[in-house]
């Protein structure tokens, strides 16, 4: 049965029009024409907050790193551990009273924002630098910085490179999709130094290329350099130059559009700072339960209903401290003197010790 071309064309046109009409009806466009019944459940779907979704699911999903020892690392037994992972646990402890109700969704540097934006995860805690364009263009909201970092450069000890000027004409390995790629270009342009950037997708590829001598230097956040140095073949043959290329405030981020969830992430993070400020640790927390200090009573949920303001039970912060610990405990467990990294606290000390950690009061 052969159709004449004319009939066929008309048929095609008709069906396209039909298709577009179907689509127009089906699309979640905010057309006022849509009937009341159809619009109501859609609106409810929209109104469902991230917290509701997390509670319903029974666990929080964090975008994390799987290969940065000290921050986010997948060990041989398949468990995630690290500084960022502990913050994910802290969120779980605050929401469910159980720090084990979390899941890490590992992502590369370039995937991380998409994973969060698409709603595949609830919060991004993956050594992510807070920058203006990420905060605005990418639709992110950044919770308080948990780790103040700066970009550094690693070179071979025997190369004799001491200053940025010594790097003139060198090949420098860098990971793509990071702020480090931009900082490197900016700093080198400012100093008028010519160099050859060699860009790889993962940190593993970068370190392989550097170790094989493809590059004279490689650059990333100083914490990352310290962390990766421990897994080089001969860690003592390399050193981190005494230059800092940039400010790298790392912290958790959430997507735009759910302020309650943003507040929750923000205040759970602050609570770890406050706990350290008041000297409350996971071990001695019970001795504070009869404290008379109003600041401590509010933090531990003994006075006022502050946790309710972020949609949680009254002992939310107490659970964080009990199960995960205060900032110092989290830091020392993952990066402190007892670990291979032995990173000095530096800027990551409380403001009372000359650092930058400062939490607004719970009031």
């Amino acid at each position, binding site marked *: 049965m052969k159709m004449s071309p004319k009939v066929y064309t008309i048929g095609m046109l008709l069906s396209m029009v039909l298709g577009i009409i179907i689509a127009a009806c089906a699309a979640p466009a905010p057309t006022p024409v849509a009937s009341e019944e159809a619009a109501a459940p859609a609106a409810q779907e929209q109104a469902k907050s991230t917290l509701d979704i997390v509670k319903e699911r029974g666990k929080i999903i964090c975008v994390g790193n799987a290969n940065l020892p000290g921050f986010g690392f997948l060990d041989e037994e398949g468990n995630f551990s690290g500084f960022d992972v502990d913050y994910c646990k802290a969120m779980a402890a605050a929401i469910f009273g159980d720090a084990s109700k979390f899941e890490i969704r590992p992502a590369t540097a370039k995937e991380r924002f998409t994973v969060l934006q698409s709603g595949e995860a609830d919060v991004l805690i993956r050594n992510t630098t807070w920058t203006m364009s990420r905060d605005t263009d990418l639709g992110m909201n950044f919770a308080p910085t948990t780790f103040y970092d700066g970009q550094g450069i690693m070179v071979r000890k025997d190369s004799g490179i001491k200053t940025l000027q010594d790097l003139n004409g060198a090949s420098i390995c860098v990971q793509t*999709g990071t702020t480090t790629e931009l900082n490197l270009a900016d700093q080198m342009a400012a100093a008028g130094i010519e160099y050859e950037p060699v860009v790889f997708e993962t940190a593993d590829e970068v370190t392989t290329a550097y170790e094989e001598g493809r590059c004279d230097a490689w650059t990333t956040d100083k914490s990352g350099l310290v962390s990766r140095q421990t897994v080089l073949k001969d860690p003592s043959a390399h050193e981190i130059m005494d230059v800092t290329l940039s400010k790298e405030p790392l912290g958790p981020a959430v997507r735009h559009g759910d302020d309650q969830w943003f507040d929750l992430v923000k205040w759970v993070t602050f609570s770890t700072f406050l706990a350290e400020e008041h000297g409350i640790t996971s071990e001695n927390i019970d001795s504070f339960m009869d404290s008379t200090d109003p600041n401590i009573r509010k933090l531990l949920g003994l006075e006022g209903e502050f946790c309710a303001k972020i949609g949680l039970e009254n002992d939310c912060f107490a659970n964080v401290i009990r199960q995960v610990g205060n900032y110092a405990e989290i830091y020392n467990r993952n990066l402190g003197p007892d670990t291979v990294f032995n990173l000095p606290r530096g800027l990551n000390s409380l403001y009372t010790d000359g650092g930058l950690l400062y939490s607004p009061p719970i009031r």
Partner: protein
Amino acid sequence: MQQRAIHPSQERPPFWRDERVLSVISQIVVVGIVVGLLAFFYTNMVSSLREQLGVPIDYGFLKQTAGFDIGESLISYSRSDTYARAFLVGLLNTLQVAVLGIVFATILGIIIGVMRLSTNFLVNRIATAYIEFLRNVPLLVLLIFWAQAVFFKLPRIKEAIILPGPIYLSNRGIAIPWGIPTETWPTYTRILLGGLVLAIIVTIVLRERGKRTGRMPILSLWFLVTLIAVGIIGWFVLPQPPLVLDRPELVGFNTKGGRTLSQQFMALLSGLVIYTAAFIAEVVRAGIQSVSKGQREAATALGLTPFQVLRLVIFPQALRVIIPPLTSQYLNLTKNSSLAIAIGYPDLFAVAGNTILNQTGRAVEVFSLVMGIYLFFSLTTSLFMNIYNRRIRLVER
């Protein structure tokens, strides 16, 4: 009523049982569903981008400053150039590796394909082993092997192997001497253009004479001879050579001068060439075998030399079978070059789909551009190959 009685066979059934109507309706429904689904996903994407994230689709970012450096580039590029220029750098890098890859893969593929048909046991087996091994290894594995196990393992730059030239061979890449244009270069390009015109004229004249006398000379040979002769004469006639040789030398961390073919570029090019050549070899073998034995025997009986048999009888017929699958191998090579990202070569996909995407966060815009560009490359390649295919196909009388 009366008509019904007279022509019962022409009675039209109700439309829901009319095959013609049903076939039209069913096609309308299918197209409607497909278009509807596409439109739904599109509007869904646009609206969720606009309303949930507040970032509507906008290509304006292309005019912004890129802010990152690119390791190798055919045109001048610095961090203060725009994203659009960074796109162009990646595009040219892809083109560079694709064009060179196609040329070398074709040459290597034809050699291996002919070897595969050799009656010499050793030659035949070497070609078979080559094809069977390389066709069955994933390209990504091959590329990483080349990058990490071959080029990374070359000596470090300080202990570079120096071949006469000088050519520096190190795990940074291969630095070779390269010509730098002088003041007379523009004049020289005009001389070359004149030579090209002359070569075309010579070829046409020779072909016409060949048709008259019945003894057709090898036209492509004469074309090249004319062009090269003009090139050589032009070089020496000019007061100053149009190109001076720039030799690489080791300065500080890297070689300066000449031209450096980076380790990433060499790894990508060799991986693509060696892999695609295995497929092309099979295409060539199949093409040659498709020419019936009688053709060869007849040609030999006419007294043609073996080379003439190959050039005048076998190859023209084999080409008809070879060209269509060869086209798809060319397209594959071009598209496979996007695996460059795994070994750090800044091709279109690595620059745009990775770095630009990360710095701007504009996934839809960046990917639509990248896909459009690859599509353009592929369609252009097919177009030229189809034109060529039409020219060489059997003229039916």
